[in-house]
């Protein structure tokens, strides 16, 4: 149960400035809660790397191999000669492979998204409903009262209209 200091800002630039300042003054990783994606958030809060691309790649790879194995394997499992074609017919099976590559690429991307963004999460977490409308919130973890007051000062200084103490 970590206490967080949470400041509400009117504009994204103020919020990002506050987050940058908090990060610079030795606090834990601040997080910005915003109603729109902020293009510049990474510049302030540090670059993020996501594992989604690995999920996508390996999902697509699995789908591709699995798709060909499905088409070729089932053709061999129960041999039905059709139209004088070979049993393992490359070109049509590549179409199946292609579709399965994309299908599993998509599914794995979704799983990657859920895993890396920690969804679904139905427990109570730090959140302010205003941040889904037009406010920009900055939350930073604080170990004790002293740290909280220090964070509050920084948030207020950066232009926060309101600072709340929230616990997760």
């Amino acid at each position, binding site marked *: 149960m970590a206490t967080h200091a949470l400041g509400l800002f009117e504009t994204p630039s103020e919020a990002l400035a506050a987050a940058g300042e908090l990060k610079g003054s030795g606090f834990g990783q601040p997080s910005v809660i915003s109603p729109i994606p902020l293009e510049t958030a990474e510049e302030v809060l540090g670059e993020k790397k996501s594992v989604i691309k690995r999920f996508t790649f390996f999902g697509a790879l699995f789908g591709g191999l699995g798709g060909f194995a499905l088409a070729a394997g089932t*053709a*061999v499992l129960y*041999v*039905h*000669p*059709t*139209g*004088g*074609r*070979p*049993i*393992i017919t490359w070109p049509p099976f590549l179409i199946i492979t292609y579709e399965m590559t994309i299908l599993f690429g998509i599914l794995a991307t979704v799983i990657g998204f859920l895993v890396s963004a920690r969804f679904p999460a139905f427990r109570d977490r730090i959140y302010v409903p205003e941040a889904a409308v037009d406010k920009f919130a900055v939350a930073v973890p604080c170990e004790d009262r002293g740290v909280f007051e220090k964070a509050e000062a920084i948030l207020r200084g950066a232009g926060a209209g309101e600072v709340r103490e929230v616990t997760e």
Partner: protein
Amino acid sequence: MSFIDDFLASWREYREPGYYDGFDYHWTMSVDLDRCTGCGACITACQAENNIPIVGEDAIARGREMQWIRIEKYWEGEFPDVKLRFIPMLCQHCDAAPCETVCPVSATYHNQDGLNAQVYNRCIGTRSCAVYCPYEVRYFNYNNHHWDAPLEQQLNPDVSVREKGVMEKCSFCIQRIRQAKDVAKDEGRRVQDGDVQPACVQTCPTEALVFGDQNDPDSRVSQTMNDERAYHVLEELNTAPSVVYLRKVETDAV
């Protein structure tokens, strides 16, 4: 690595086109157009042998006739100098059949005797095989058919009755082929030429139709195939049909 060798060996085998070539029988029919009188006895015989429904006048007016073998008619020239040409048309049992590749559920495939088999139970009725067939010899059950008493008494017990939503077509009387193969197996021999005849061949009064095994070079059908009059219908489509037509001799042209 024997596993990899096995894999590569079977891979090569399965990559070989014309998988059916190595099989024992390659049933073939030849149609001598010089002998054919267009009497239509083959149609009736087929109807009786294969439980083909009598669809009735209305359905025929709507273009839903059911004839596994039909006599195609073509008029040539203008009246009064007019000629009627005709050609019996039935499933050509193509070795490179377009209908087989298109079926999503493998309801039609090439069996071990070089026949184009239709599995009624497996058919889901997409009707794409009928579209892909350039010979238009596949017939669809648009609705359930019934046989008025006492016609149901003459249904052939060796042939299933097809329900609505199922495609059907000439099978070269596969039930008779099965029977002949069973007898031959019991007697420890191959099926001989003349052991088996589809209903249409059996009925043809002028012996215009000849049926047999193409793999047997001495069979009557193999010999007719060497005739200089022999041709395939729509040969340019490369479907490799198993039905051979012998051109009509033009007596008035001589």
